[in-house]
């Protein structure tokens, strides 16, 4: 064994010597190539921001800060305030994450830790199929199947139990903020599940074996050795899902009721930033109207960036304190 490696090593050295001085061209080219690719992404983000800013400049000048603090959206009177849309985007995304995160991570844990091997692949394929459904189809399914069912069964049940809180009070019509959140949850579920599953699969078996060796139960192994180890990655999966939730458009528009209002009750209709752009952009004929819609795009852009920054900050505080107990 060792004789062969020595021989091979010996064969390589003279060859390298003949090629001296070694060319660094490939290294440099590769460096610049990857650098420019990374730069293109940054440039794209800057260009999008710049374009949105330029498209909405008159509206920014006219409405100033009031644009994000007022609630009137009236194209006839040319009064534009984006607050109900910001609120709707935030709340529907929050509902979506509250539903989708436990479901997705639970599914991922089951698939990597507990499920019998023959079951894993079929379930994974099914989840990936869910991601392939076009959002407008999901939206129509929302109108014709999901909403009638929600309206007749789970919603009245929720109201019976939690109707005393402002969040579940008032008449139930069907299309509402909660329905919007639920449809977004269905849409982000596949993303969070598949990314989480990949992350849990990449947890070294050594971790699990070490925990078992210490006499941990299956639940303890999953909690201490797997979930805690993969915490950072799982958080990243949730952030990916959140990105999708903030920008989700067609399916939400179909079920959220499209009414720009801020209401505590989740049974009341709402509206999101992405939905109002999709709804009104094609028929916006006056300049200021178009400018206001561009500014909505700018606000959505800003909200996405702020939420991502906050998430990174949160990630740092969570993992910063718990870092020492990690292996590697």
């Amino acid at each position, binding site marked *: 064994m060792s004789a062969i490696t020595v021989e091979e090593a010996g064969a390589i050295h003279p060859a390298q010597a003949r090629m001296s001085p070694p060319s660094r061209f490939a290294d440099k080219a590769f460096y610049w190539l990857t650098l420019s690719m990374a730069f293109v992404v940054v440039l794209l983000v800057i260009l999008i921001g710049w374009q949105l800013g330029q498209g909405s400049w008159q509206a920014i000048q006219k409405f100033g800060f009031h644009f994000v603090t007022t609630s*009137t959206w009236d194209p*006839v009177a040319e009064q534009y305030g984006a607050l109900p849309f910001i609120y709707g985007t935030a709340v529907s995304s929050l509902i979506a994450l509250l539903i989708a995160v436990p479901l997705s991570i639970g599914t991922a844990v089951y698939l990597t830790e507990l499920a019998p091997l023959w079951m894993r692949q079929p379930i994974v394929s099914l989840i990936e199929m869910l991601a392939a459904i076009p959002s407008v189809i999901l*939206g129509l399914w929302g109108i014709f199947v999901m*909403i009638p069912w929600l309206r007749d069964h789970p919603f009245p049940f929720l109201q019976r139990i939690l109707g005393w809180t402002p969040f579940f009070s008032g008449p139930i*019509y069907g299309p509402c903020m909660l329905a919007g959140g639920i449809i977004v949850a269905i849409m982000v579920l596949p993303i969070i599940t598949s990314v989480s599953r990949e992350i849990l699969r990449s947890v070294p078996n050594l971790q699990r074996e070490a925990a078992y060796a210490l006499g941990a139960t299956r639940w303890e192994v999953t909690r201490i050795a797997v979930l805690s180890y993969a915490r950072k990655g799982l958080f990243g999966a949730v952030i990916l899902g959140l990105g999708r939730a903030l920008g989700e458009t067609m399916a939400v*528009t179909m079920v959220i009721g499209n009414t720009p209002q801020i209401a505590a009750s989740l049974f009341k*209709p709402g509206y999101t930033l992405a939905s109002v752009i999709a709804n009104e952009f094609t*028929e916006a*004929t006056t300049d200021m109207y178009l400018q206001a819609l561009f500014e909505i795009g700018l606000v959505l852009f800003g909200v996405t960036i702020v939420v991502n920054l906050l998430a990174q900050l949160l990630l740092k505080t969570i993992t910063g304190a718990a870092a020492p107990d990690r292996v590697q």
Partner: protein
Amino acid sequence: MTKLHKTKLVGLAIALGLSASASGQMTINGAGATFPYPIYSKWFDEYAKVDPSVRFNYQSIGSGGGQKQILAQTVDFGASDGPMSDDNLAKAPAKILHIPTVAGADVVAYNLPGNPPLKLDADTIAGIFLGQIKKWNDPKIAATNAGTNLPDKDIIVVHRSDGSGTTYIWTDYLSKISAEWKSKVGTNTSVSWPTGIGGKGNEGVAGQIKQTPGALGYVELIYAIQNKMPYADIKNSAGKFVKPTLESITAAMATAQIPDDFRFSITNAPGENAYPIAGATWLLVYEQQKDATKGKKLVEFLKWAQKDGEKMAKDLDYASLPEDLQQRVLKRIDEIKM
């Protein structure tokens, strides 16, 4: 090898020849309204048999987009479900003509137990959409529907959430019949709604109405017919209850005041048989055509559409223009200069 090369060359030559003859065929580009898209595609299809040398390329991107593109001169014709505003016309580099083509109507569709026939007058419709009439058994609804069993249920108003010509016709009607609506809400492709939930597109509104007991909203007549939805008879300005049909829409165009620039509205038209919530759709072209050969072909098509195209309207559930309006439009098309 050489044989193979030869056949390749011949193939290439044929391909080049084909593409050359394809570019010899003229393409006229248009963009705009989605509502007339089915009949326009039918027209372009049929017209290809009349004049194989022109091909039409129409993008149904919405009326707003159609107006923008004709103003920017990126298309040869635009299409819009509402006439262009004075502000937008002032932005045009040259005079733009409005050519009305066909018309449609908004119907009041509803979902009641057993779906009984319903009759509504202007005041009631305005009251419902202003959020003042909240229950189905309101005396105002009962007054025009004697004998109909109206439930003690909330009326769930459904409107379009996306900007649309359908909404423009609807709010134009409400602004004409209700001073309160005019001052509080106004007329536009999308407005700040006093009440109700928004559905995206005709399919969104129709879906919400079908799935929500007690719902009421407006959809395009074609859409209601094709989806077999019940819709109300509406009392017109002559005091008669009129069913929305292709004939009652054409009747509205026959009695409405139509100015010479054809920027007209046929809502609340005065005739006895006129259905009051209807509207036309327009093609937008420059009076002075830049490209003489293209302009000539476009004029030929516009004339064909008014003479022969109108006859195809009925089969596709569009209302055709009344005879005398067709004549006026034809005269206007003649004024297009090359």
